[in-house]
């Protein structure tokens, strides 16, 4: 999928933006605080209908404005264009349209526009809490399957209902609680089984990319530690990926019901549901040991990038369509070797959107085909038609940067 055109209205500090973008590489150059990150956030918004940075909708609207809008035109692999629009009012519900038709469920967006995003906090993916990585797994599966996303939203809804009920403990009837437990099992089991069944493939991809980026750096493994399924829970190998079998779902359901039963006393004490797919944790192991505990900063950074690249590959395998890649100030955190590895991978057919404050990033990519560069200043974009040495030197002066040494 290729983004062709983007139009933003009152999105954070971007009052009015209209761009035809390159199907290959787009660089947004500017000092910090000018709107580069906001622009990438807007580009990622319509992939699942929410801020990829996890911000609330109301925060996305320009100060003092009643609404914000994002309009994208995305071409699919056959070259057919789809219009995606989000209208976000300051009060009231956002409205999302696909080709002018209002969508009732965010899951309807899946498959139209997928992005893989790298941001300066990327190392958190390996270093941060296991919940962080569970969300990554959910995000990956949601981008590849509207059904997964829809079940996830329904599961979260049922979970919120049950948790609210637990807050009024002990004035809770057992029969009412039982009803919500059943709903959790119904929506949660497909999530549990689906995660288990893709984990192996995601692990293969991550390990392969990791070893390309860090030869002899050891082997990466992914471990899902479930509050519901036992470690030895196996899903019969299904090379054609025909989806979870009823038998797997039933077995997961048995485990889930028992886990909920066992957690009954505990959850009444804590006032929230303690077991289920929302509590499962994804661990990364390097050389058989917890990366988060024993890994070096460099290893964690490489593993984070490998996971994201694996996400892109996984989405390509599942949907036959390459996600666009959003890079927010990513290269500045990387050493030469990893930058090369990342850029080599990016040389594939991904459409790139790069936000950077460094002139050197433009210099480094100047020879790449299909490059377009914009300067971002105070929420306004100006395309740089001239990226000759002389012009870049002038810009370097303006941005107050020294040339990279070495």
């Amino acid at each position, binding site marked *: 999928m290729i983004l062709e055109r983007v139009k933003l209205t009152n999105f954070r500090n971007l009052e009015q933006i209209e761009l035809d973008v390159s199907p290959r590489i787009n660089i947004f150059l500017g000092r910090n605080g000018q709107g580069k990150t906001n622009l990438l956030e807007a580009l990622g918004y319509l992939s699942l209908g929410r801020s990829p940075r996890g911000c609330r909708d109301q925060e996305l609207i320009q100060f003092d404005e009643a609404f914000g809008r994002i309009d994208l035109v995305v071409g699919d692999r056959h070259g057919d264009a789809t219009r995606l629009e989000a209208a976000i009012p300051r*009060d*009231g519900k956002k409205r999302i349209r696909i080709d002018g038709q209002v969508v009732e469920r965010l*899951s309807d967006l899946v498959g139209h526009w997928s992005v893989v995003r790298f941001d300066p906090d990327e190392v958190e993916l390996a270093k941060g809490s296991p919940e962080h990585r569970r969300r990554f797994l959910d995000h990956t599966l949601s981008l590849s399957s*509207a*059904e997964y996303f*829809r*079940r996830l939203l*329904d599961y979260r*809804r*049922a979970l*919120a*209902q*049950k948790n*609210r*009920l637990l807050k*009024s403990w002990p004035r809770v*009837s057992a*029969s*009412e609680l*039982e*009803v*919500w437990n*059943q*709903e959790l099992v*119904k*929506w949660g089991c497909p999530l549990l089984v689906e995660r288990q069944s893709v984990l192996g493939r995601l692990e293969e991809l991550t390990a392969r990319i990791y070893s390309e980026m860090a030869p002899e750096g050891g082997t990466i493994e992914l471990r899902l530690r479930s509050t519901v399924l036992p470690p030895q829970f196996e899903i019969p190998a299904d090379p054609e990926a025909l989806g979870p079998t009823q038998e797997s779902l039933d077995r997961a359901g048995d485990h889930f019901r028992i886990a909920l039963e066992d957690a009954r006393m505990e959850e009444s004490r804590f006032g929230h549901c303690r077991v289920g797919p929302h509590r499962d944790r994804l661990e990364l192991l390097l050389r058989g040991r917890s990366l988060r505990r024993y890994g070096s900063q460099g290893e964690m950074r490489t593993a984070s990038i490998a996971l994201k690249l694996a996400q892109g590959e996984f989405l390509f395998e599942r949907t036959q369509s390459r996600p666009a890649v959003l890079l927010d100030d990513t290269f500045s955190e990387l050493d030469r070797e990893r930058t090369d590895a990342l850029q080599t991978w990016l040389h594939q057919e991904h459409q790139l959107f790069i936000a950077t404050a460094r002139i050197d990033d433009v210099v480094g990519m100047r020879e790449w085909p299909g490059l377009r560069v914009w300067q971002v200043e105070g929420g306004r974009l100006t395309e740089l038609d001239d990226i000759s040495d002389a012009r870049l030197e002038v810009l370097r002066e303006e941005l107050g940067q020294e040339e990279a040494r070495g």
Partner: protein
Amino acid sequence: MSRPTYGSHRLDRLIKLLGRLPGIGSKSAARIALHLLADSDQGVQELMGAVQDVKDHVRPCERCGGIAESELCSICEDPRRDRGELCVVAQATDCFNIERAAVFQGRYHVLGGLLSPLDGIQPADLNLGSLAHRIASEDVEEVVIALSASVEGEATALYIQRMLDDDRLRITRLATGIPVGGHLDFVDDVTLERAFSGRRPLG
């Protein structure tokens, strides 16, 4: 920061009250208020009269919770309706949707909402006690649960099913599946899965 006003606190108050109505945002409320202002006195009187008239004479049916002008609604009073079939719906408006389709000859029971702890709606807030009472006293043979297929609708259906657990009573649910005239292309997998599991032999 004070809210912008229209220069008349009377008009502001009307807009505020209109804005509390379901489905009406602040902009629509202002549009309606300004429309009323421009309307003839007679038109506005008619509207106010109609609102008052409804408040005075329309009330919930004492048996089913539907809309009635006397003790019982017209459906509950109709002797031709099948007493053996009882259709459970969330809102009174659901009865009218089903009546419009003219597919159901039995009677209704309106719950007045769906279970939703997030909105503070618990079993005691729904007309569930009277449902159990009706089933015990009215020779009901089949309960048709006609609730939406949302998380809350499913949970409420399950709750009713468990509450009414009785071998002599038939409890059914409306089928979920492909809309009539709908294209298979546009049916999502979750719905398709339901449609498959609920498939029926031809003929």
